[in-house]
């Protein structure tokens, strides 16, 4: 494979982890009255989604991290992998594509129903080598209160751009296997995973299935275990990666950071996240083995090229890890996850119904956060209404040029912390955001850390859930701002 004439591979990578990190000790303390055995899992922290984060929002943030200032105009396809898509029969990748303003001609596809969906999606895209592509894995596997998974699971996303220009890692070998090894499962109509005994999963699953597949992939690449500099094996089970590496003869120091103490296992996104972090640390010429495990496995052998030195994600997984906001109120995590129905008062009764007609009509500006730049007077404005807002102009909007505000530097102009409104993460931080290109609008501000807000606080945009319409099962998304510094 390494001698193919047409070079194709990973050209960029990035990731996202929610800033919110629950201290595992707080989870253990909550449940110790009935599950004292959880104590051994009480070290470190796990990432958890804010109430307004999900697979879509994390996927968009990871993709932005990978894309940086690069245009999306060349992209021909987008694959979104997750075990937890917000919609069962809405193409979820199309929502991500719209927020990233991918070309309307890009092929979009969802990959799911397996925790190896992320690795499988990446492998499929690399093998097809069909033009500039974006592969995103995003997940936040659900966990029942007081389960082992509530402590070991996390959340996050990773994204990879693929193409033939400045390939920084190329596929030099791969192998796959399928079987019926069902060690845990979440039925379509169930909320949580049902788990079998860990010792069995380790011995009959990982230690038997993974080594033979890795060997086959290395053989195809003409490599041996000694050539593996980064071994990416994602699992919610502790130390299984080290055990598999040992059995294969891969050096212990080659075993990639499993983000265990800092983030937790993020389902279909976890191996891709570990790969994104490994790429941040890799050197040209090194080899990375990536394993996706679940009813068999997929193995990729990647060779890092010199082009790696020229690429940096915006913040990367390492940057996302560093942006931790520690939390110790267990009920906050439980409530955000929908695990408890708290009394939010009558203000929460407001009907949140989206006119799907208007949602579609307005998607050209709402999905991609697209302001209008008036060619007649230069005013950049959001929302785009029928006429230019400038009283000295009022030219028709037909001549506006679209300008996305997603990556325009911005700061707080006015703000308040609203304790009266219904908000799932009170108080609601709201205020005017002033963008450097002159645009401004009233926005919600999220993940406000200990430093709080003030006039002039630098901000960046994040796609978030605007409202959850529980009565109709509809999620609407819009852009919010978050302080640049966590």
């Amino acid at each position, binding site marked *: 494979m390494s001698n193919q004439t047409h070079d194709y591979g990973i050209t960029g990578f990035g990731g996202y982890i929610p800033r919110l990190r629950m201290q595992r000790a707080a989870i253990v303390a909550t449940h110790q009255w009935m599950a004292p055995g959880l104590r051994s899992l009480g070290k470190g922290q796990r990432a958890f989604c804010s109430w307004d984060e999900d697979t879509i929002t994390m996927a968009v943030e990871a993709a932005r991290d990978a894309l940086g200032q690069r245009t999306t105009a060349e992209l021909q396809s987008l694959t979104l992998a997750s075990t937890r898509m917000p919609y069962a029969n809405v193409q979820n990748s199309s929502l991500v594509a719209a927020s990233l303003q991918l070309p309307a001609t890009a092929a979009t596809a969802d990959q799911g129903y397996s925790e190896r969906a992320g690795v499988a999606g990446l492998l499929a895209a690399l093998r097809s080598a069909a033009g500039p592509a974006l592969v995103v894995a995003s997940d936040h596997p659900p966990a029942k209160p007081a389960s082992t998974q509530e402590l070991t699971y996390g959340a996050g996303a990773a994204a990879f751009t693929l193409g033939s220009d400045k390939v920084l890692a190329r596929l030099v070998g791969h192998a796959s296997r399928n079987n019926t090894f069902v060690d845990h499962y979440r039925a379509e109509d169930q909320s949580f995973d049902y788990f079998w005994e860990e010792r069995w999963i380790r011995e009959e699953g990982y230690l038997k299935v993974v080594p033979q597949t890795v060997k086959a992939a290395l053989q195809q690449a003409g490599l041996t275990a000694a050539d593996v500099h980064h071994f990416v094996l994602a699992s919610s089970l502790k130390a299984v990666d080290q055990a598999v590496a040992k059995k294969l003869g891969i050096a212990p120091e080659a075993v990639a950071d499993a983000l265990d103490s800092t983030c937790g296992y993020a389902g279909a996104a976890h191996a891709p996240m570990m790969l994104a972090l490994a790429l941040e640390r890799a050197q040209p010429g090194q080899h990375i083995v990536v394993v996706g495990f679940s009813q068999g496995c997929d193995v990729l052998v990647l060779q890092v090229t010199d082009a790696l030195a020229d690429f940096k994600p915006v913040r990367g997984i390492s940057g996302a890890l560093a942006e931790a906001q520690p939390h110790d109120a267990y009920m906050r995590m439980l409530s955000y996850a929908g695990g408890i129905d708290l009394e939010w*008062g*009558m*203000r929460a009764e*407001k009907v*949140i119904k*989206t*006119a799907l007609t*208007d*949602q579609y009509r*307005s998607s050209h500006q*709402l999905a991609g956060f697209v302001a209008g730049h008036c060619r007649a007077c230069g*005013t950049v*404005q*959001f*929302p785009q*209404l029928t006429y230019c*807002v*400038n*009283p000295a102009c009022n030219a028709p909007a037909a001549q506006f040029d679209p300008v996305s505000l997603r990556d325009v530097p911005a700061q*707080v*102009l*006015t*703000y*308040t*912390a*609203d*304790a*009266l*409104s*219904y*908000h799932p993460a009170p*108080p*609601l931080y*709201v*205020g*005017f955001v*002033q963008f450097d290109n*002159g*645009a*401004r*609008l*009233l*926005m*919600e501000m999220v993940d406000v850390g200990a430093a709080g807000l*003030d*006039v002039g606080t630098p901000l960046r945009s994040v796609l978030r859930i*605007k*409202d959850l319409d529980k009565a109709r099962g509809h999620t*609407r998304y*819009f852009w919010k701002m978050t302080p640049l510094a966590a």
Partner: protein
Amino acid sequence: MATGIKDKVAILGMGCSQFGERWNVGTNELLAEAFEEALADAGIERKQIEAAWYGSGLDPVNVGNSAIPAAMGLRLDLIPVSRVENMCATGTEALRSAVYAVASGAVDIALAIGAEKLKDAGYGGLPTPYKGTFNDMWLPMGSAPAGFAQLAAGYRTKHGISKEELKRAIAHVSWKSHQNGVHSPKAHLRKAVTMDQILNAPMIAEPLGLFDCCGVSDGAAAAIVTTPEIARALGKHDLVSVKAIQLAIASGVESSMSNWDGSHVRTTRAAAKRAYAEAGITDPRKQLSLMEVHDCFSITELVTMEDLFVSEEGRAVHDVLDGFFDRGGNGVPCQVDGGLKCFGHPIGASGLRMAYEVYSQLLGRAGERQLASPSMGLTHNLGGVPYLGVAAVSVFGLMG
């Protein structure tokens, strides 16, 4: 060139219901209280009213859309009745419509009436409004205090005032109104409060605490207007006439362009300038005897003092702390009846309730609250939010 409405319309009679938590009455009874007082004051009968405008802001806690509920409630049979809604300026909007109808010569006697039954909401504060299918998809769902609280950030940043000093000044705004409310029999809240109570109250929307927010009440108010000639023919001697009613609505400049600094309310300034021109006011700080302004929140009143050009820019904090707007403060008394702070803010009624106080003061009927020989009073409403709203400024005075 339009000549405006100065002195073309006189107030024949006014009425104001008891404001408060009126658990045992509905909108119809509130309307009737204000209506009957206005009829009696005007000295006319129901059938002499030729047209009516009914203001109500919030359908879910009122009587519903259209003017039919008001026509039924007051039994205004077959005359033209319109329902108007323009956020917190709704009451003033009803009055403006009635005044314009008389000024145009279309009718001789018109009624403006507004009411809101807020205490059927089931909780304190205003129900969260819908903003339309498009805006609901992107605008944050902030509360009313969250909209106005942002003025504090903008104001203190522009004028270099510390959070603490601004908090003291807005606390004084509320303290003064509570002092005044004690002498207002129709007010909802009639207890004086201390500065400490205000400063230490629970936070609603930073920096606004509980006492920085106006009350939430049921109420109604009404005005019957006619021409000065007809008023005199009906036996009125001391006439209060309308000097000006002006409205200014935001078109998105503050909220979508980068020149507004968040420290003032552009719509109030525009409405004030036009109202002063219409009324012939050149120095409001000297010419106005009293003001009833839209103190939905303490910070709103403070900023409004500059937007009405009574305080110079950046000086309202000092005027407030110097007591310039206090009763007996040798300045321009503001909210002598206690304002929205003590009356609460039944949306449809508030503009008319303010006019009722100015009218009562001008006619020397304000009882314990009576000011010494006032000649000109101003009312002001601010609907929506400071950056996307409806401002109304009206001037009333004794007719020479």
